[in-house]
């Protein structure tokens, strides 16, 4: 479905993403992890079109999308959520999602956009009340809204950026569950960037690890967490957390 090869992004003399290649198969959940500044977000920005690659190719459904403007990439079927939710505060909850549904699908009919918005809100468990504002949403609610906005664009591939940040443990399990359901019920392929590894390792099919812009490991959660280079990158609690989660899964 997605085939990235030789992806490079430089900012001046700094190489944020260095010769990264990977594939994502239809229907899988790929975890993308790595320490701060490892190039995860840059990779997401390249995939969603916020940044243009310096070199390399990004093929989605057989077509090159590297360097296309974001709105065209969304219309091809790649949706994304943001680490820090950025809803439009002066629009209603429904307007926020319907707007994404309308433009994200390349401006279909009004009813189609409304339907997409309603299904997306149902999926994440937010109210479809047209009048509801977004003032009352807490951290978990805002994350759900982010997800609903991305789903309303009817993506084939969802880029989920730190869907767990700022949530308590029960909310994290809920959010992880939701990603599973999105794949199971809507058939959406997912790439999931996350800092909180335990939950991620229990959900994803495969993991890819970035460090200093380079891919240092890729494989099943159990393999990756046993990889000495990964353990080195995640010295301390994180590494044991990774292994514990992988063990629990096995």
């Amino acid at each position, binding site marked *: 479905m997605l085939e990235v090869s030789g992806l490079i992004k430089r900012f001046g003399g700094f190489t944020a993403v260095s010769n990264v290649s990977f594939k994502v198969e239809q229907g899988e959940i790929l975890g993308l992890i790595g320490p701060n500044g490892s190039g995860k977000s840059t990779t997401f920005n390249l995939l969603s079109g916020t940044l243009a690659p310096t070199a390399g190719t990004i093929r989605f459904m057989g077509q090159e999308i590297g360097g296309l403007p974001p709105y065209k990439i969304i219309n091809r079927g790649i949706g994304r959520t943001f680490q820090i939710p950025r809803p*439009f505060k002066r*629009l209603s909850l429904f307007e926020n999602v319907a707007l994404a549904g309308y433009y994200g699908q390349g401006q279909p009919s009004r009813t189609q956009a409304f339907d997409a918005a309603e299904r997306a809100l149902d999926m994440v468990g937010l109210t479809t009340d047209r009048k509801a504002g977004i003032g009352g949403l807490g951290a978990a609610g805002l994350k759900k809204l982010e997800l609903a906005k991305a789903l309303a664009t009817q993506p084939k591939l969802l880029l989920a950026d730190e869907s767990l940040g700022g949530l308590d443990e029960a909310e994290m399990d809920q959010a992880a569950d939701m990603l599973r359901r999105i794949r199971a019920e809507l058939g959406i392929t997912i790439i999931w960037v996350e800092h909180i590894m335990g939950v991620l390792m229990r959900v994803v099919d495969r993991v890819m690890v970035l460090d200093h812009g380079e891919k240092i490991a890729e494989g099943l959660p159990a393999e990756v967490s046993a990889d000495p280079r990964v353990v080195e990158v995640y010295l301390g609690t994180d590494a044991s957390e990774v292994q514990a989660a992988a063990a629990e899964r096995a």
Partner: protein
Amino acid sequence: MFDIYLLEAGINGILLGGVLALLALGCNLVFGVIDVVWICYAEMIMMGMYGMFYLVSVYHWPFLLAAPVAIALVGIIGVLLHLIVIAPLLNAAPINQLLATGGVLAFLQALATVLFGIDFRNLGIRMPVIEVSDMYLSYARLLAFGTALAGMIAVYLFLSRTYTGTAIRAISQDRQIMPLMGVDSRKIYLITSLIGGSLAGLAACLLVLQYDVHPFIGLTFGPITFMICVLGGLGNMIGGFVASFIFAEIISVGGLYMDLEWGYVFAFVFFIVTMFVRPRGLLARKS
């Protein structure tokens, strides 16, 4: 004590306020969405007034046929302004954007002087004055007020009921996120410029009934329009609406007791004092 002159001045203030609100709406819409102040806004109105003058007085078109053409003409000027001047400067420093649109102001004044000369022109249409229980109200002002109000309601409905309108409201809140929701920002900017220009064109059709047009007529409306926008909170369309009526009432009622010029003096003093008390405008949003 009931004072019929005060009532008359009050009503005239409301009528003036409607037209000022129309001027402020166009400016605020453009600023709110594109984040650039069209300093040359009043000069675009001037071009529309000349358009009306030539169509109606020289080519003898009926007024109601000429008006949509003039509105479209200024709408196109708005689009061209965006494409030629604003778009290349979207990420430039605000002062450069101001200087560029200020340059367009000087350009349009000079262009009008060269093309049309410095004569004062009017349509030669005499509008009746209506007498309502001892008060004298100008028909041109009533017409301008009604049309301005209708124009503003149309814009309001467009902004609140359509996806394009929702996108315009949304992009003024967070411009970086819009492309990531699948919105082509350039298209939204062009639509906004077209609407902003068309509003200037509508204002031109109304003002040409009350004022003679000459190359420097923009100076009559430009400064006051910007003061109203700033008073209401730049980019805040509702603030601009409220500020228009406050300004118009001060001018109209203030001018009742002394010369009309004093009305403007009071309005400007009010503006200066407000800027000290509320630098971000009367209805500034907490940011």
